[in-house]
C-alpha cells in the first residue's frame, strides 16, 4: 500500500509518500513541499495538498491509496498598531515632515502661512512663511527678494519642489527653508506655523519639545500639554513644520487594546507593555471568534543602543499576536477524501508525528526533546523515563514575519524574505557594507535603485532588493535577531514551563522551517544554555534537513499501527 503523510502547516504543506509492506520498514518514495493554500485545516488547503500528491504520483507512477493527516489546529497571526500617527489627537497641531534631505538654513522660526502670490500686496504686520508652488527657483527667489524689499518679514519658507537650497542661496541662507513638501497644498493658509531645520546629521529639537513648540505656536498654557503628541511625532526628523489649528483635547487617542480572557475569567490587555500569560492560560481574545488553546503576543523590539529609534518604535504601540484555536470541523479531511477519492486518516497529534520524524535523523535515535518550530507554533515534546509531555505554543515564524514587516514597513511576504536573508548597505555602486561591518567590492556596479539603501541580499545569485527603511544593516540585524528571540526563544521558554521544565544534559532535536535559520538555532541555544543540552538540527531521513518531520512521522506512526 502506498500512503501519503501530509503536514499542512500555516505556511508550508509537506507530503511524504511511502510504500508500506507488512513486516517491513516504510519505503519512502518522495518528500515534497509547497505553499499552503488557504488557512490551515480549511477546504482551500486541499488544493495545495492535492497538487503536491498529483505531481509526486506522476513522477512515481503510482498514487497513494490513503492520506495521513495530523490533528490540525489553525493559528492566526497579525499585528496591530494602536498609535499610528494619523490616529493621534495632536492637540490641534497639524504637522508635516518633508522628505527632502536638503533643507536650507538653520534654526526654528514662526510666522503666518501665506501663498507666494499673497506677497504682491502691502506687507502684513506679522512675520510670514510663504509657500512656494512648483516654480522655477530663480523666478521664485526674485519674487521673495522683491517682497522682502517692500517690507515683508519672511520668517521661513516652504517650497513644494526640491529647490530649498537653491532658493535659500538666492534669498537668505540663514532662513529655515523646507522643501519637497508634497502636501503643501493642504497647509492651512493664514494659520500660524513654526518651521525648524537642524544642521546636517542633526534632528529638530525645538519642535520636538512640547513646551518650546507651544511657545513657537503661541499656544496658551492650557494647550501646551496637548502639543506633546505633535512634538513626539516630529522626533528624529531633520526638518519639520507644525501648524496651529483649532484647539482640541490633546488627549492621546488611545485605542483600547483588545482584551484576553483567561481560563479563570480574569482579563488582561493584549498590549505591548503587558507580558503574555503562561501557555494555555488564554481562553478568548477580543476580535477572535474561536475558543483558544493558546495565545501569545510580542511587541516590536527596542534597540538598547538607539534611544531615538526605540522611542519611535515604542510610540507605535504595536503588538504582534498569534492565537492557536480549537478546530470544530473536519472540512479539510472531507475535501481531501472527496477530491482524492481515497481514504483520509487522522493519525494523531502533530507533536507525536514530529518526534517520530525527528527520530529518522542519523544518530538521533528517539531524542528525549524534540522542538518543532514552524510558521504558526513552537511545538515541544519531552519524552523521558516512559512519560511524554507535549505542548503547542502559538507564535513562531509568521509572528516574526509580522514584526519584521512592521519595522521595515513591508508586507508579510517581503518580511518573510527579510527575516531569513542577510542585508547590505550599498555604499557606492561598487561597495557593499555587510551586517558585520565588512565590505564587498563588486566587479560590476549595483543597480542605481539600490544605492544608499538597505538591501536584501539573495544568497544564491547575490541579487539585491532595496528596502525603504533607513536602517543601517548592523542595526537591522540586531532588530531581526531580537524579533526571533522575543518570539521563538521566548515562546519555547513558555512551552518548557508548561511541560514542567526540560531535563538538563539531554539531546534536543530542532525540526521545522525555522530550524533552517541559523539565527533561530542560535537564539534557541542561548535560551536553553543553562540546561547544558546537546542541541542538534534534525536531518529527516538523512537528506531533508529539519523539514518534513511531521509528514514523515505520520507515515511512521501509521505503519506501527496499520
Amino acid at each position: 500500500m502506498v500512503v501519503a503523510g501530509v503536514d499542512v502547516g500555516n505556511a508550508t504543506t509537506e507530503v511524504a509518500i511511502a510504500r508500506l509492506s507488512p513486516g517491513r520498514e516504510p519505503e519512502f518514495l518522495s518528500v515534497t513541499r509547497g505553499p499552503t493554500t488557504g488557512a490551515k485545516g480549511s477546504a482551500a488547503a486541499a488544493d495545495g495538498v492535492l497538487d503536491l500528491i498529483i505531481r509526486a504520483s506522476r513522477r512515481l507512477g503510482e498514487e497513494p491509496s490513503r492520506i495521513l493527516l495530523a490533528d490540525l489546529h489553525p493559528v492566526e497571526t497579525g499585528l496591530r498598531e494602536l498609535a499610528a500617527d494619523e490616529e493621534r489627537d495632536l492637540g490641534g497641531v497639524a504637522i508635516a515632515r518633508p522628505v527632502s534631505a536638503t533643507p536650507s538654513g538653520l534654526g526654528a522660526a514662526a510666522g503666518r502661512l501665506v501663498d507666494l502670490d499673497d506677497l504682491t500686496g502691502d506687507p502684513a504686520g506679522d512675520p510670514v512663511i510663504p509657500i512656494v508652488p512648483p516654480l522655477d527657483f530663480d523666478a521664485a527667489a526674485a519674487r521673495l527678494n522683491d517682497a522682502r524689499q517692500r517690507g515683508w518679514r519672511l520668517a521661513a519658507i516652504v517650497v513644494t519642489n526640491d529647490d530649498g537650497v537653491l532658493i535659500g542661496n538666492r534669498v537668505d541662507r540663514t532662513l529655515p527653508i523646507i522643501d519637497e513638501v508634497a502636501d503643501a497644498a493642504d497647509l492651512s493658509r493664514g494659520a500660524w506655523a513654526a518651521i525648524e531645520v537642524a544642521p546636517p546629521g542633526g534632528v529638530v529639537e525645538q519642535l520636538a519639545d512640547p513646551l518650546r513648540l507651544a511657545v513657537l505656536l503661541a499656544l496658551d498654557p492650557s494647550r501646551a500639554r496637548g502639543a506633546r503628541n505633535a512634538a513626539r511625532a516630529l522626533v528624529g526628523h531633520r526638518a519639520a513644520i507644525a501648524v496651529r489649528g483649532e484647539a482640541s483635547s490633546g488627549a492621546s487617542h488611545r485605542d483600547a487594546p483588545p482584551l484576553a480572557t483567561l481560563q479563570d475569567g480574569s482579563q488582561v490587555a493584549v498590549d505591548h507593555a503587558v507580558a503574555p500569560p503562561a501557555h494555555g492560560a488564554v481562553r478568548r481574545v477580543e476580535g477572535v471568534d474561536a475558543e483558544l488553546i493558546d495565545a501569545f503576543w510580542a511587541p516590536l523590539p527596542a534597540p538598547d543602543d538607539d534611544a531615538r529609534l526605540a522611542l519611535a518604535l515604542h510610540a507605535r504601540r504595536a503588538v504582534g499576536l498569534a492565537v492557536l484555536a480549537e478546530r470544530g470541523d473536519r472540512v479539510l479531511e472531507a475535501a481531501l477524501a472527496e477530491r482524492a477519492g481515497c481514504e483520509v486518516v487522522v493519525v494523531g497529534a502533530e507533536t507525536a508525528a514530529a518526534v517520530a520524524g525527528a527520530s529518522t535523523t542519523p544518530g538521533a535515535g528517539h531524542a528525549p526533546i524534540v522542538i518543532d518550530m514552524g510558521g504558526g507554533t513552537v511545538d515541544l515534546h519531552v519524552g523521558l523515563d516512559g512519560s511524554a509531555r507535549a505542548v503547542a505554543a502559538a507564535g513562531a515564524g509568521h509572528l516574526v514575519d509580522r514584526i519584521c514587516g512592521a519595522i521595515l514597513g513591508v508586507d508579510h511576504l517581503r518580511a518573510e524574505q527579510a527575516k531569513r536573508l542577510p542585508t547590505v548597505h550599498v555604499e557606492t555602486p561598487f561597495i557593499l557594507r555587510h551586517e558585520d561591518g565588512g565590505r564587498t567590492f563588486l566587479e560590476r556596479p549595483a543597480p542605481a535603485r539600490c544605492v544608499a539603501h538597505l538591501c536584501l541580499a539573495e544568497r544564491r545569485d547575490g541579487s539585491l532588493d532595496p528596502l525603504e527603511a533607513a536602517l543601517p544593516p548592523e542595526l537591522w540585524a540586531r532588530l531581526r535577531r531580537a524579533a526571533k528571540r522575543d518570539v521563538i526563544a521566548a515562546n519555547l521558554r513558555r512551552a518548557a514551563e508548561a511541560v514542567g521544565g526540560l531535563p538538563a544534559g539531554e539531546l534536543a532535536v530542532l525540526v521545522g522551517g525555522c530550524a533552517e535559520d541559523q539565527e533561530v538555532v542560535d537564539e534557541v541555544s542561548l535560551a536553553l544554555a543553562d540546561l547544558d543540552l546537546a542541541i542538534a538540527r534534525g536531518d529527516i531521513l538523512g537528506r531533508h534537513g529539519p523539514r518534513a518531520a511531521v509528514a514523515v512521522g505520520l507515515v511512521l506512526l501509521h505503519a506501527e499501527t496499520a
Partner: protein
Amino acid sequence: MSAPAVVLATDDAELVRLVRAAFEEEAVPLAVVAPAPARAAAVRSPLGIGLAARGDRLELALATGPDEPWLVDDDPRRLGRIAARLAARRPLGELP
C-alpha cells in the same frame, strides 16, 4: 584635479546651468571641463563620477567598472541630481 568634485565635460551653457542647479541643491561640488566622453570625465573626477553629453542625452559614468555609462537620461537636472546624490551617498530618488 584634486578637489573633491564630480566632473561635467561639456561646453553647452544651458546644460551646465541645469546640472549646476542640481549640484547646488545637493551641496556637492561640480567641476566643468572641455567636452570629453563621460568615462574620461569620471577618470578625471576625484570622486570617480563623470557626466557628459552624447547627442541630446546626458551620460553618467563611473571611473571604475565597465566602460559603458552607468546611467543615461534626457533630463539633465535629474541626472545631475542623481550624480550629486551618488557623490553624497544619499538615496538617488527618481531614476530615468
